């Protein structure tokens, strides 16, 4: 039996009528029109579908939509502010962390999750934090450097009091 699903996506209260076996990825893309989150492998190997659920990184292709009822979902579409991109987006853009762009939404979400728990990660910690995200274009080096650069900018902004903690952790 289909059920009414109510959840918050990137700050917006949304709802859909959902069959129990549907995944969160399908509902985000097909029912709610939030196509920023991508379908890559569709079985949790590639990370293109990564979203935050109450701040935790989750492969939305392998997560039942109804389990997200009442929860806060953050997708790539929720990262940018009104006037500026998120520092991670800006660093990916300027540093060549994007080529075809298909892995980028998931890469960004995993990077946000990583920096929320470790604002000053080592290169190895960045590699571990992005280990569930595959990129077939960049060879990863520009992505690692972009995360390092964004992390430094976000630390500087936080210590200068220029942003609130919500920029660092969208789940807050």
């Amino acid at each position: 039996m289909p059920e009414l699903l109510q959840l918050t996506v990137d700050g917006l209260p949304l709802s859909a009528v959902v069959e129990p076996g549907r995944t969160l990825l399908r509902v985000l893309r097909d029912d709610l029109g939030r196509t920023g989150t991508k379908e890559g492998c569709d079985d949790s190997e590639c990370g293109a579908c990564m979203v935050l659920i109450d701040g935790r990184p989750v492969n939305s292709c392998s997560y039942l939509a109804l389990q997200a009822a009442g929860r806060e979902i953050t997708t790539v579409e929720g990262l940018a502010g009104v006037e500026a991109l998120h520092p991670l987006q800006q660093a990916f853009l300027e540093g060549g962390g994007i080529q075809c762009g298909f892995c980028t939404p998931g890469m960004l979400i995993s990077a946000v999750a990583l920096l929320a728990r470790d604002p000053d990660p080592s290169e190895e910690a960045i590699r571990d934090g992005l280990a569930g995200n595959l990129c077939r274009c960049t060879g990863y080096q520009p992505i690692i450097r972009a995360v390092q650069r964004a992390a430094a900018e976000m630390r500087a902004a936080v210590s200068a009091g220029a942003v609130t903690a919500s920029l660092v952790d969208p789940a807050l």
Partner: protein
Amino acid sequence: MTSRFAAPATLEAALAILAADGAARPVAGGTDLVVAARQGRKDLPESIVAIDRITELARHEVVDGVLVLGALTSHDWLAGSPDVGSAWSALADASAIVGSPATRATGTIGGNLMNASPAAETTAPLVVLDAAVTLQAAGGASRAVAVEDLATGPGRTVAGAGELLTGVAVPPTAAGSGSAYIRLEYRRAMEIAVVGAAALVTLTGDGRIAAARVALTAVAPTIVRAPEAEAALIGATADPATFRIAAAAAAAAARPIDDVRASADYRRAMLVVVVARTLAAAAARARGQSIPIPASRWAPGQEV
């Protein structure tokens, strides 16, 4: 196709559904159940009981020296807990290498055990640490089952219809003990063990092995103890020569298969290397040496 879905807030309600609906199966994070369906290996159950909102299954604490884990305890928490890392290191070693950060944030200890994969990472550590699970059913029925006795084959356990794994209890280890879990892996993430081994070693003051438990991953239909290896260790000096003898003896418990990830011959050959390395890490920890978590990333010296 799934036609029924429930997300009860209490254990009592979840057990009532599992008792009343014979087709109902529990899901916590979905990192096995939903992935298997996406890969076309196994359809989603007709009826799903999501247990992830049951707060009484999410607790984790140390009570009188016993590590008490609710079924919903995440791999992420196990990998990062200082208590687990120091006193039950093998479990931290295993939890830290499950899947990816997303798998570890969402996947649970209860799911890892009940999925009963012959390659499950946390099972061998829990076997050597002598852990037991609690299986509960509606009406107050509850029983403890040793993790060693839980799985009966790939994807199969002793749990009956209506029984839910609600928690895991890991007893304290004896003074002078150390434990470790190491797997052979082809890549660092989104990987499962090609072969793996967990060991618990208890040393006497003069460096002899007073007690030892060894369990093997991905070399049999279930995770298995290696009694021949344990016998070779007890009473012997904890040194590389002993570890090599015990590792060779461990092969007696292995019944590996050929599959897409490795041939049976390769598994048997690598098992000996992995067991020796795991024993060295466990013994080093028993002596108080710091071996980083996960031990699979540890590069032992020439002595092994």
